[in-house]
C-alpha cells in the first residue's frame, strides 16, 4: 500500500479524476459559481481528509503537475500575439486603462486589508489576486505571501468578476465593448474572460488581451508599491 501511495501516479490520477468529475458537474449545471478548478480542489481535499491519506503522498504527483505551470505561462504570449491588431488599434486607451485600473486595484487591496486588519502575509497573498494564476503564484512568493492562499483569492476574484461583470458594467455605464473587455480581463483574468466571450467577440478578444498586459503591469507595480508601504505598515 505504502509503495502504491508513494508513486506519483496516485496524485496525478486523483487530480485527473477530480477534474473530469468537476467538468461534468459544470456541464450539467452551467453555474459559474461551480468553477471546475474550485470543485476539483475541494474534491481532492475531501478525498484526502476522508481516507486520511497524508498530503505529502498526493504532492509527489502534484509536484509533477505543478511543473507544467511554467510553460503554461509562457504560452500566454500566443493569445496576446493573436490579438496584436487589436492592441495596435487601441494602444493608448488600453495601456492607460490597464495601468490606472491595476494601480487603483492594488491600492484598494492594501486599503481594504488595513481596514480589515489583515497581517502582512495575508496582504502579500491578496495583492496578486487579479492576475492570471501562474503569474500570481510567482508574485505572491516574491512578496512573501502564501501561494495556496493567493490561488484561493484569485479563484474568488475570477468568480466574482465572471458572475458580476454584466451587472457592474451596466451600473457604471461602461457600454463600449472594448472598454468592457479590457475591464473584465484586467480585474478578473481568464475566469472573467469566459464571461467576456459570452458577451461578444470584441469583449472576449479584449479581455484575453488584457490578461497578459495586466499581469506584466502588476508584476512591475506591486513590488514597488509593496516596498513603499511596507515601512509604513511595520
Amino acid at each position, binding site marked *: 500500500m505504502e509503495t502504491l501511495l508513494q508513486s506519483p501516479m496516485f*496524485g496525478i490520477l486523483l*487530480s*485527473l479524476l477530480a*477534474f473530469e468529475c468537476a467538468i461534468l458537474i459544470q456541464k450539467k449545471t452551467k453555474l459559474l459559481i461551480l468553477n471546475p*478548478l474550485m470543485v476539483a*480542489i475541494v474534491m*481532492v481535499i475531501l478525498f*484526502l481528509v476522508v481516507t486520511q491519506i497524508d*498530503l505529502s503522498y498526493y504532492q509527489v*504527483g502534484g509536484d509533477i*503537475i*505543478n511543473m*507544467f*505551470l*511554467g*510553460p*503554461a*505561462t*509562457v*504560452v500566454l*504570449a500566443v*493569445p*496576446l*500575439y*493573436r490579438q496584436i491588431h487589436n492592441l495596435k488599434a487601441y494602444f493608448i*486607451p488600453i495601456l*492607460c*486603462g490597464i495601468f*490606472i*485600473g*491595476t494601480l*487603483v486595484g492594488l491600492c*484598494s*487591496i492594501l486599503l481594504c*486589508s488595513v481596514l*480589515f486588519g*489583515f497581517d502582512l502575509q495575508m496582504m502579500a497573498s*491578496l495583492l496578486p*489576486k487579479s492576475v492570471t494564476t501562474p503569474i500570481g*503564484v*510567482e508574485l505572491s512568493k516574491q512578496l512573501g505571501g502564501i501561494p*495556496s*492562499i493567493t*490561488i484561493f*483569492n484569485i*479563484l474568488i476574484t475570477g468568480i466574482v468578476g465572471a458572475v*458580476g461583470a454584466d451587472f*457592474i458594467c451596466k451600473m457604471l455605464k*461602461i457600454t*463600449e465593448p*472594448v*472598454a*468592457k473587455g*479590457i*475591464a473584465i480581463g484586467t*480585474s*478578473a483574468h*481568464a475566469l472573467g474572460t469566459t464571461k467576456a466571450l459570452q458577451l461578444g467577440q470584441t469583449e472576449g478578444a479584449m479581455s484575453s488581451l488584457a490578461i497578459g498586459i495586466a499581469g*506584466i503591469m502588476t508584476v512591475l507595480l506591486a*513590488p514597488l508599491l509593496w516596498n513603499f508601504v511596507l515601512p509604513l505598515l511595520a
Partner: protein
Amino acid sequence: MKLFREVILIFGIYYIGEFLTTFLNLPIPGNLVGMLLLFLLLCCNVVKLKQVSTVSDFLLSHLSFFFIPAGVGLMSNFSLIANAWFPIIIVCAITTIITMGVTGKVVQLIMKKGKK
C-alpha cells in the same frame, strides 16, 4: 515529430526565462520573462505561430487543471484562512468591482476623447 519540436521550443523558452531571471537577478518571475521572450520572437517572426500553436492551445484550454495541486496545498494552510475566509471574500469582491470599474471607465473616457 511536430509535437516534440513544439514542446522543445516552449519548454526551452521557459527555461531560458528562468535562466535569465536567476543569473541577471531580474525582479520579474522567470515564467513571465519566458512569456515576453516568446511574444518578442513571435513579433519578430523568428518563431511562427504554427510552430507552437498545438501545444499552446492544449496548455491554455486545460490551464486550470494544472492548478489543482497548488490549490490542494491550501490544506496545509487551512488554519490561516479558517477564521478569515469571510473578510477575504468581501475584500476580493470589493476590490474586483473597483478594478473593473476604474479600468473600464478610463478606457471608455480616452476612447471618447479620441473620437472628438
